[in-house]
């Protein structure tokens, strides 16, 4: 897919850098020339209507899908030729989080620590702080399937962070949880970002978009807005992100 000369040792200070990132399926262009950056420690909101191309873009950035054109670097490695290195440096939490319901809390953390290449001793070292932070210390032997949804989501997030990645991708992490759990989850996101990890997050809750340092809104495969919440609202002359989202996505929302 990609030609030679992968800008060897591309000196990017960005956690994510996309330049004209494009993906076509047949004659349909799902992602059309995305160009944006995400800084270390930044919380970046990745918004758009259903079908706008967010998932396709995210799948390219985490190395599951090759770009048709354009380039992207994640954690300093080039998407495509260096997908293996990228996967070791990122965390990913999908909508249907990938925890094993029939394993215990402890077993899930060990499993993912191992998959992310951590040694047993490292996993043992990190297990305690993770459980402590989630208030799960007393529940290590409990099957994950028995945990309330909000705990599962926080555990899935922690598991995605257990190898201390440079970038973490969260795909609708707060769907379906109660308003308090949703907010606690965002406090975990802030703590993670404060530690230098870049966070790229998708959500259908536009109030959560306000919690992002910067955000983008995808419409029909392109970035229709990019900037801080205050800047994108000011640029469009609207009072709320709801109004902006409505204006940008309604033409494409009929089908």
């Amino acid at each position, binding site marked *: 897919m990609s030609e030679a000369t992968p800008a060897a040792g591309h000196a990017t200070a960005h956690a994510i850098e996309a330049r004209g990132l494009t993906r076509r399926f047949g004659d349909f262009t799902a992602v059309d020339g995305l160009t944006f950056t995400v800084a270390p420690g930044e919380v970046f909101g990745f918004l*758009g*209507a*259903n*079908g706008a191309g967010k998932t396709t873009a995210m799948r390219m950035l985490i190395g599951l899908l090759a770009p048709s054109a354009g380039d992207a670097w994640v954690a300093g490695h080039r998407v495509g030729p260096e997908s293996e290195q990228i996967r070791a440096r990122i965390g990913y939490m999908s909508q249907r989080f990938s925890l094993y319901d029939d394993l215990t809390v402890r077993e899930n953390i060990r499993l993912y620590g191992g998959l992310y290449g951590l040694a047993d001793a490292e996993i043992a070292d990190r297990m305690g702080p993770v459980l402590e932070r989630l208030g799960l210390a007393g529940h290590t032997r409990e099957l994950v399937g028995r945990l*309330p*949804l*909000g705990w599962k989501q926080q555990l899935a997030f922690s598991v995605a962070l257990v190898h201390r990645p440079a970038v973490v991708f969260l795909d*609708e992490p707060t*769907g*379906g*949880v*109660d*308003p*308090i*759990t949703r*907010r606690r989850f*965002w*406090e975990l996101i*802030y703590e993670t970002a*404060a530690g230098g990890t870049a966070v790229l997050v998708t959500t*259908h*809750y*536009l*109030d959560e978009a*306000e*919690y992002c340092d910067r955000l983008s809104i995808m419409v029909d495969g392109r970035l229709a807005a990019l900037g801080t*919440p205050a800047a994108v609202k000011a640029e469009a002359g609207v009072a709320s*992100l*709801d109004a902006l*989202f*409505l204006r940008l*996505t*309604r033409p494409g*929302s*009929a*089908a």
Partner: protein
Amino acid sequence: MTQAPGGADVVAEGLTRRFGAVTAVDGVSLSVAPGETFGVLGPDGAGKTTLFRMLATLLVPDAGRARVLGLDPVADLWALRAQLGYMPGRFSLYPDLTVEENLAFFASVFGTTPAAQAHVIAPIWRQLEPFRRRRADALSGGMKQKLALCCALVHAPRLLVLDEPTTGVDAVSRGEFWELLGRLRGDGLTILVSTPYMDEARQCDRVALMQGGRLLQVDRPAAIEAAYPRPLVAVTGGDRLGLLAALRAHPHAASAWPFGESIHFTDTRPEVPAAQVAAELETWLAATGQAARCAPIAASIEDAFIWALGRAGAA
């Protein structure tokens, strides 16, 4: 079999359903008037689906009883099913049938045809018609939900039971779905709808806040908002994490939670006017080196839900 004029379309008394050790619905009582749009708000696992399945003849309660359109959902299930449109939470249509094939199939189950019901489904069909020959699995999330609504409506039911029709659908498509429901309300249809999105509460005549199998509060959305029992202040500006920490350390803090651009601060003292709390808070924050604007605000349903969760000890 028909109920008295002025009677409720849906009545539940102490409705309870257990799954093993879990009580999914725990003594729920409610009543929905004819023509009313009644919303059940709550997160995943609150018991919304189990409650709706009992009312829609799909699950037998362990305790309590229900009357729906004057009928018993257990004893009169066939009579009730003919008058009730149910839209399950998971996409329930045939993915490899087209839009019009799905609609014709669901009509035939109830011994009718889409053509015979054209007047009932007209507002929705107008939006679906351009995609009539598209396979259901090739529709966008928002259009799938509209097709499911159309199929639930095609036998002209008197009551619609919609289980999370807008979950996973983007904000714009959610708005469009509610516009459609608004038109059906105009026709006098009774609608029972559940949602995890708090902002949809204001679309309902009355809402129930549900968590842990129980109803925490039932009322008109405006009444629930007006009943917020403490002074509420919106705090804007500064570094959010720093502000949150500072506000939670305030001697009269009941809670402080991010709400979009601002942080909502609830004071513990019911008797102090919110304007006074705001003024005090701004001075206090300034003294701790945090410059932020503080203004009294009216509570939203989401504020009320958070308050109710805290009181129920479910948080």
